[in-house]
């Protein structure tokens, strides 16, 4: 068990900088998720922690120890790969015991540790099979088993569920959550799927273009996104953004309006000046149908999911706003609707995209 500390971590390939200075502290036993779009550097960052990529600048510590120059095996880490990386010619038992075989451990120790890992992952019946006889989920279980046997201080997961089908992904997600509760180990998990991030993490690190956008608990990120990127990335369906102008601000709230909407009152954390150009963020789930709502449009798309109805409505300017309405709402295409936002759940961002 150990904490992980990153100080000014940078990675560059020649002149191209892919990680542009990351400072981060991951507490002992914490489940941290790196999330971001493809190419944001999240996998590179994880591979640098693992020791598979050199660190161009900065210091990386696991526990009290600076590990920049240690080979992967001495960093007390275990890694689970997206492609499983289990050895095709070995049985499950041999795969799980691989690290022990390499270290020359006696047979009794191997058997005991493999049995323990198999019990935790409920795969005792698979031990004598070969990887080619396993399903994707079972293969990933073997890979996790191999990680458990190492008794690492830090578990590293590189998009471990991306190769699984949707239903299995949900199951494995729950199992990983349970595994974390059982082992109480520090885990770092990389994904591009914000749902995985929201459900698994104690702490989410949102990355974009090699820069940390925001670090916080899932709900912090959901309710107080630090900037436009985080606001747009976290939450599904995606947050609506409307260009607005501030009319006035009072008591921690600002009255804003746009060509498309009537005046809307939104909370502000800092302050805005009258006439300032802002971006108003409204989550689809925070919109409701009302007779006198400030936002008027025509229904362009209806998706009925049973428990909710997602509609897209075209505003006069042509911008399509998405609303997730609770329950089954009787609407038809082309019908004019009026929507009212929940005023306590609105977000305002300044011209540079930072939340105000």
């Amino acid at each position: 068990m150990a904490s992980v500390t990153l100080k000014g971590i940078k990675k560059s390939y020649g002149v191209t900088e892919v990680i542009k200075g990351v400072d981060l502290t991951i507490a002992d036993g914490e489940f941290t998720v790196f999330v971001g779009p493809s190419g944001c550097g999240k996998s590179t960052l994880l591979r640098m922690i693992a020791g598979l990529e050199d660190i161009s600048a900065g210091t990386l510590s696991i526990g009290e120890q600076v590990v920049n120059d240690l080979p992967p095996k001495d960093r007390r880490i275990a890694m689970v790969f997206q492609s499983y990386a289990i050895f095709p010619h070995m049985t499950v038992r041999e795969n799980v015991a691989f690290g022990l075989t390499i270290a020359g451990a006696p047979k009794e120790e191997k058997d005991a540790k493999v049995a323990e890992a198999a019990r935790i992952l409920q795969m005792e019946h698979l031990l004598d099979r070969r990887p080619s006889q396993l399903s994707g989920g079972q293969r990933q279980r073997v890979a996790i088993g191999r990680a458990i046997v190492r008794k690492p201080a830090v578990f590293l997961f590189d998009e471990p569920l991306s190769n699984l089908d949707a239903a299995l992904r949900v199951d494995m997600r729950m199992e990983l959550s349970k595994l974390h509760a059982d082992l109480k180990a520090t885990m770092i998990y990389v994904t591009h799927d914000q749902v995985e991030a929201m459900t698994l993490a104690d702490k989410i690190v949102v990355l974009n273009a090699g820069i940390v956008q925001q670090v916080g608990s899932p709900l912090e990120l959901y309710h107080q996104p630090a900037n436009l990127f985080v606001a747009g990335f976290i939450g599904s369906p995606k947050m609506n953004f409307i260009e607005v102008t501030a009319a006035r601000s009072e008591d921690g709230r600002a009255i804003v309006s746009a060509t498309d909407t009537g005046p809307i009152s939104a909370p502000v954390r800092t302050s805005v000046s009258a006439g300032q150009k802002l971006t108003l963020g409204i989550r689809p789930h925070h919109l409701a149908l009302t007779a006198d709502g400030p936002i008027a449009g025509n229904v362009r798309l209806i998706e009925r999911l049973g428990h909710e109805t997602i509609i897209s409505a075209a505003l006069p300017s042509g911008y399509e706003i998405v609303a997730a309405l609770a329950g089954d709402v009787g609407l038809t295409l082309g019908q004019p609707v009026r929507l009212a936002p929940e005023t306590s759940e609105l977000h305002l961002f300044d011209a540079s995209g930072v939340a105000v």
Partner: protein
Amino acid sequence: MAGPAIFLIGLFVVVPFLFAIGLSFTDQRLVTPNPTQFVGASNYNQLLGLNLLPLEPERDAAGQIVRDEAGAAKYPAVRSFTRKNPDYPQYDGMREWFSVGVGDTQWVVLARDVVFMTALVNTFIFVLVVAPLQGGLALGLALLINQKLRGINVFRAIYFMPVVVSIVVVSLLWRFIYDGNSGLLNNLLKSLTFGAFPSVEWLGQPETALGAIIVMSVWQAVGFHMVIWLSGLQTISPTLYEAASIEGASKWQVFRYVTWPGLRNTAVLVLVVITMQAFGLFSQIDVMTKGGPLDSTQTIVFQAVQRGYGKQDISGGSTISVILFVLVLSISLIQRWLTREKR
């Protein structure tokens, strides 16, 4: 669509193949006024006939072994058994291949065709040395050049170069290298040992001729197999290496647990291809030694060509080809069985 291809394969592969099998049971010659006759398996007997002759030492009237001044026992001449001796019709026309002394008795192995037997043994020696040597060397080179280094393609090209040069040209060049007077190899050894190394006629002595041809053959084709190994190496997923490095595997352990198992299919292919190519050893012999000196570099294919065209004995040449075919087929099957995936 496949019509022309099937026709050509039929004309140049299947038909000659069937012809060879058919002709091996006749007395067909290349040019002859006599009609061809079916002779059964006599061609095979002629080539493969072996017999064992126990030679008792000569004894005097008292039953004592006759010895010469040096104390060596005196044996009757083998010729007296194999030349029109009505008591031993089974030995008639055979020649001594080699003999082994057990106690006083000298066991003489007689062969109906000693040259063919020599060719058979030489070919087997060639295969047994070349297959592991060439395969292993090619794997070593492949591991060396399977790295992301600047200019690594230059090395790949250099190692592959001998493969694209005709084997006849390579053989001619190596004749200069092996030359007994001012050959490159002799000069090199001389300058390395400051003149202490005596000049060797590498291709002109029975002891060194086959070895010289083995070295040259390994060098010529090693690049080809290196490329096959390289393609095998590049099919192994890099994440497997990463997983192994996280588990702390040493270089040797990585090779043993990741690389080598991942190369299993490539290994079977390389082994079978080298074996088959080695059994077909001909061009080097034809250009460099013509089977000599003293039949020390005779090989099966060289014999087949010599008999079929040199001596115009088409049926003899065909028989050798059929024997070679059966040999290679059975060895390939054995190799496949030995290297099968064990479940």
